[in-house]
């Protein structure tokens, strides 16, 4: 009897081992912990149905810890097979340190334009190291019920925008503009980088900063800081201690009318807001015909150079380049817009509105992301701090702009 039991146990063990050899598990490192269920329930099952021998695990870390945790894991050799890539220098550094593999020869990379790949390519353009997944677009989300109640229309120009804000403020029942400065990045990203491209003419201004022909404290960029400062009277009480989740809650509870948004907020409000909401693009300065939007290359996925399952991981990456993935991803995560050149149908009405601006306006990315955040002081970090201080009223827009320009001049040769 005992012997029989032993044989049974051994048999089971052998079967287990045989089974384990059949399927390969690959792990994805990511900072998108909000998307865990979407990956597990919507995206990965489609892939696993086609490749039953590959088991994909989505293993996210909290966004604020992601970079630090990932670096530590890569150094320790415990990182997953696939790495979700932050745009520009954070990922470039990983590639230069040999942690990310080159993906030049990956089938399907031709489905992405040069602009789409620009955030995950070496400065000389010789190596691409991540498959672009999605961009995010900035704009404003508004509460349709409040707009209907107060008889307001979507503003298109800056003066219309302020007229709407004044009307909401005069009514007094709702917070006109739902944004806080406690988290600092909210002021810079949802404020400055949202409305800014209209003032600095998108790519023209951004590339001007890089080649030294534009400055943060003159013309378009200075005007953008002034425009940001004008928001202060429309923010809610105690906005100085209002965090990003606070802002989301205030808007979702229907306490505020207009929310300076990143398109990723759409899926949040789809699940939390009980009212209907719409979106309008950043208002253009009066008299200006062209409009510009921030269509920021935000997220990509690369291959851990030390992955023991590189072959299977590459199969997954090839699938990420396909139209199937692009459609699946764009619709499962409304607000993250595929960077693929293949045609993708977006079903969510608000997300479709956001992505529709790509046809009306010129796209640009956030001014500080390419090259300019390589030095000390860090340009992006300084933009966070100064944008928040301008809204808090502790520095004037001109002083703030001068500080940022001085920070750039301290180390960046083309600006000296």
């Amino acid at each position, binding site marked *: 009897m005992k012997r029989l039991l032993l044989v049974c146990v051994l048999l089971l063990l052998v079967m287990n081992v045989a089974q384990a050899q059949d399927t390969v598990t690959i792990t994805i490192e990511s900072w998108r912990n909000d998307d865990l269920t979407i990956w597990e329930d919507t995206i990965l099952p489609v892939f696993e149905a086609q490749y039953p021998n590959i088991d994909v695990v989505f293993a996210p870390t909290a966004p604020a810890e992601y*970079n630090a945790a990932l*670096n530590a894991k890569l150094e320790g050799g415990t990182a997953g097979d696939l790495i979700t890539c932050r745009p520009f*220098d954070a990922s470039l550094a990983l590639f230069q340190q040999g942690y990310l593999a080159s993906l030049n020869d990956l089938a399907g990379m031709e489905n992405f334009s040069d602009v789409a790949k620009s955030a995950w390519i070496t400065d000389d353009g010789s190596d691409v190291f991540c498959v672009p997944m999605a961009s995010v677009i900035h704009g404003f989300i508004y509460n349709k019920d409040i707009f209907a109640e107060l008889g307001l229309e979507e503003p298109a120009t800056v003066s219309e925008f302020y007229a709407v804000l004044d009307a909401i403020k005069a009514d007094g029942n709702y917070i006109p503009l739902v944004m806080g400065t*406690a988290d*600092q990045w909210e002021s810079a990203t949802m404020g400055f980088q949202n409305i800014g491209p209209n003032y600095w003419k998108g790519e023209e201004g951004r590339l001007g900063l890089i080649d030294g022909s534009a400055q943060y404290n003159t013309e378009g960029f200075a005007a953008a800081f002034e425009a940001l400062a004008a928001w202060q009277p429309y923010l*809610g009480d*105690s906005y100085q*201690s209002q965090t990003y989740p606070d802002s989301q809650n205030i808007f979702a509870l229907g306490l505020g009318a207009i929310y300076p948004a990143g398109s990723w907020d759409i899926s949040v409000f789809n699940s939390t807001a009980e009212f209907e909401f719409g979106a309008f693009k950043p208002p253009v300065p009066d008299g200006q015909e062209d409009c510009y939007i921030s269509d920021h290359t935000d997220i990509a996925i690369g291959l851990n150079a030390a992955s023991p399952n590189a072959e299977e991981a590459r199969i997954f990456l090839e699938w990420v380049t396909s139209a199937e993935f692009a459609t699946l991803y764009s619709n499962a995560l409304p607000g993250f817009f595929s960077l693929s050149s293949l045609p993708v149908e977006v079903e969510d009405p608000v997300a479709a509105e956001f992505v529709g601006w790509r046809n009306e306006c010129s796209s640009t990315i956030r001014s500080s992301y390419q090259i300019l955040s390589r030095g000390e002081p860090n340009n992006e*970090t300084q933009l*966070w701090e100064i944008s928040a201080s301008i809204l808090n009223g502790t520095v004037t827009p001109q002083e703030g702009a001068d500080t940022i320009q001085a920070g750039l001049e301290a180390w960046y040769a083309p600006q000296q």
Partner: protein
Amino acid sequence: MPASKRKSFPWHIVVFLAPAVIIYTLFMIYPLIDSLRLSLYTVEQQGGPEVFVGLGNYQRLFTDPFWQPQITRAVGNTFEFFLIHMFVQNPLALLLASLLSSRFIVGRSIYRTLIFTPSVLSVVLIGFIWQLILSPVFGRALFAQIGIKLPPLLGQAETALPVLSLVSVWQWVGVPMMLFLAALIAIPDELIEAARVDGATGVGVFWRIKLPLIMPTVGIVAVLTFVGNFNAFDLIYTTQGALGAPDYSTDLLGTLFYRTFFGVQLQLPNPTMGTAVAGVMFVIIFTGVLIYLFTWQRRLLRNTVEL
């Protein structure tokens, strides 16, 4: 033969010390020395080799126009954080301990437990709870119920650090209170009774009998407060983020170290400068502990000998 027996090496001491020494060396001393070593190197470009620069990183930290304001601000803020603990938390703990050691207060063990509870909770939890209490959404509504208009305490440069220090005091006050309480209870009743017989009042007994007798504990609490608060990081990171918002007004040495060593958003990690910041923290803490050992503790020892 007895002579050689006396000389034989006391192996049992080695055996008993070994686990602690090995673990402590492996996980505390080695990383400390290695991080001090790393602070003497620099990396010219991402992924490049480490180059020895001696005290170059420290020189940069204290003279470079970019680093110098950051380190001085962080040291200043850390001192403020420490001083608020020293002069609010510890006197408060002493007051609570002397109240709780009195026989006339009913429900002492309930108070003791309640006051001590926050210090066993996670700092992250404490941070989130207080952030919620002080938030403009939930907290304002809460305070409005009792007729107080809550200012944005965590969002203003002038109030953020003192308020967070007090939150930390609220969390940790139980620990020094317990230490003081243990010391107060250990005082022999005869001493107090004798003082009473000689006509000392309650206040007099506290200042002249109890306080001098618990001086060693006061010293220990002071040095623990110093070490604990110069290492502080988690509460600030939880509530204000790695940048010590607003406008770096809550930026401590701990957050400056984290930001430099691990990077933040687009700012890439700079381990060599980060370890230099850690080196500064080490020097400050080490100096503080040495001062304690060579002044306070030595004087206490001398006093005991004289007694």
